[in-house]
């Protein structure tokens, strides 16, 4: 019996250890390859140069165009997902009947289960042509439609997490608001949303983190042209798309061109790591407020 317990304990420990080990080794690979990259290209150059052309004869290693592309698609995605997601959360919480809510919530989560490659084709073959019908200058590959579709993809993330945050607000606060003669709308925006603001903020940060790391949609629909611009109508390239492009191409292993993807990956990792920690910190700081 005791031996059995020990074995089970050991197995549990092992699976936890393996997870950590894998994470650590991924970071190690990223770091070591990035260090090699930065020994050839200075970090100042990497951060300040305005062009990213490592695959061309005349090489430029400025990450900014890729960051701008990522930033642009992410901002568009959040601009779509936040208002819609929050509206859904408020609707489910303040207006919908309990039975309707139990039916609609899982349905929304289905949005999150659609493969991103499907979203990508949806952006390229449906959304872009549709947008082109009234935005004449819109290129076939563009940040706008990729961003919009990415926004649709992360709606359930925001609506679900925000809904959880709003329903975690004590019922007594809602009663207080109603008792003062608030309408449902006033209750939602004047009391419930502010009281749940930290949870809503966390949902947005996690959504940003998801959008920053999203690959397939932007790779298919946003183009592969690193460009330092905030114009959503032209082809751009995100950090993730660049990594895909090089990984799939025939760049020789161990070359400087090859190492650029680790530098780009490191940049991406730093962003998502910071965002996730920020959300964790906000959660911790504001959670105890109502306990």
């Amino acid at each position, binding site marked *: 019996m005791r031996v059995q317990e020990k074995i089970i304990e050991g197995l549990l420990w092992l699976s936890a250890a393996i997870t950590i080990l894998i994470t650590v080794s991924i970071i190690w690979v990223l770091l070591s390859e990035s260090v090699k990259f930065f020994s050839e290209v200075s970090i100042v150059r990497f951060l300040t140069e305005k062009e990213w052309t490592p695959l061309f004869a005349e090489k430029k290693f400025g990450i900014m165009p890729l960051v701008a592309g990522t930033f642009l698609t992410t901002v568009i995605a959040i601009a779509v997902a936040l208002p819609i997601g929050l509206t859904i959360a408020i609707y489910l919480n303040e207006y919908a*009947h*309990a039975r309707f809510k139990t039916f609609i919530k899982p349905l929304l989560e289905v949005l999150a289960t659609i493969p991103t490659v499907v979203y990508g084709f949806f952006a390229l073959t449906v959304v872009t042509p549709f947008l082109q019908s009234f935005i004449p200058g819109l290129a076939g590959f563009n940040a706008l439609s990729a961003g919009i579709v990415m926004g649709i993809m992360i709606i359930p993330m925001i609506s679900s997490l925000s809904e959880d945050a709003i329903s975690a607000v*004590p019922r*007594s*606060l809602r*009663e*207080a*608001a*109603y*008792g*003062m*003669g*608030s*309408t449902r709308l*006033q209750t939602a925006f*004047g*009391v419930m949303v*502010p*009281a749940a603001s930290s949870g809503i903020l966390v949902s947005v940060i996690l959504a940003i983190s998801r959008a920053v790391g999203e690959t397939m949609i932007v790779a298919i629909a946003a183009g592969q042209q690193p460009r330092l611009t905030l114009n959503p109508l032209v082809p751009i390239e995100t950090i993730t798309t660049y990594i895909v492009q090089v990984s799939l191409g025939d760049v020789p292993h161990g070359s400087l061109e090859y190492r650029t993807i680790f530098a780009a990956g490191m940049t991406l990792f730093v962003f998502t790591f910071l965002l996730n920690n920020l959300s964790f910190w906000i959660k911790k700081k504001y959670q105890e*407020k*109502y306990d």
Partner: protein
Amino acid sequence: MTKKYSKLEAINLDAYYGDFHALKGINIAMEEKAVTAFIGPSGCGKSTFLRTFNRMNDYIDGFRIEGQILLDGRDIYEKDIRVDELRKEVGMVFQKPNPFPKSIYENVVYGLKIQGIKDKKILQEACETSLQQAAIWDEVKDKLDKSALALSGGQQQRLCIARALAIQPSVILMDEPASALDPISSAKIEELIYDLKKDYTIVIVTHNMQQAGRVSDHTAFFYMGELVEYAKTKTMFTSPKDTRTQNYITGRFG
């Protein structure tokens, strides 16, 4: 002006939670500018009944009523009644203090702000008046911009009363307002209720027999969804007519 003897009325009121018959054929008329206490054991329907007067039960799935609730002679469950308007007339104080996670000032003026009042002077005056009426002005006048959550439980409850007073209702419903408080805070709330009845019609639900005896003019005893007895508080506590009332008051059950 003479007092109305039927500021609030219930006529043949039945209430249901789904199949559960929570209130059975209640008839009662409550006097203006007086304190009416609802007493009875847990689950007797007194809180449910209290909440029918500002339609706070509306949001509970499966809840419905039959019969009428009249405020100044008008049926508040009629179709053209706006619930938010009704609640400006019938304020409520809850069992657990429930200030908003905002500043003390913002809490008190909340009800005015949602009515669209923006004039700073009006809001500030209303804030001071209400806090004074709720006997908490002296304790908070120097920290109006501090969070209401930093106040003690008793102070929070008086703040909630001030918040309810700020919108100048004519009726205030109190659902065991002192039950979550220490004896000193509780006594302060009782004093406050006594002062407030000069201007307001107060209906209070309480578990505390002594409290009902001290603060109320009339008492209604509920048992298993029925209004068993309704009389002047003194009369009820000295010579209850129904044996169930007598048993409850003397502490034989409940």
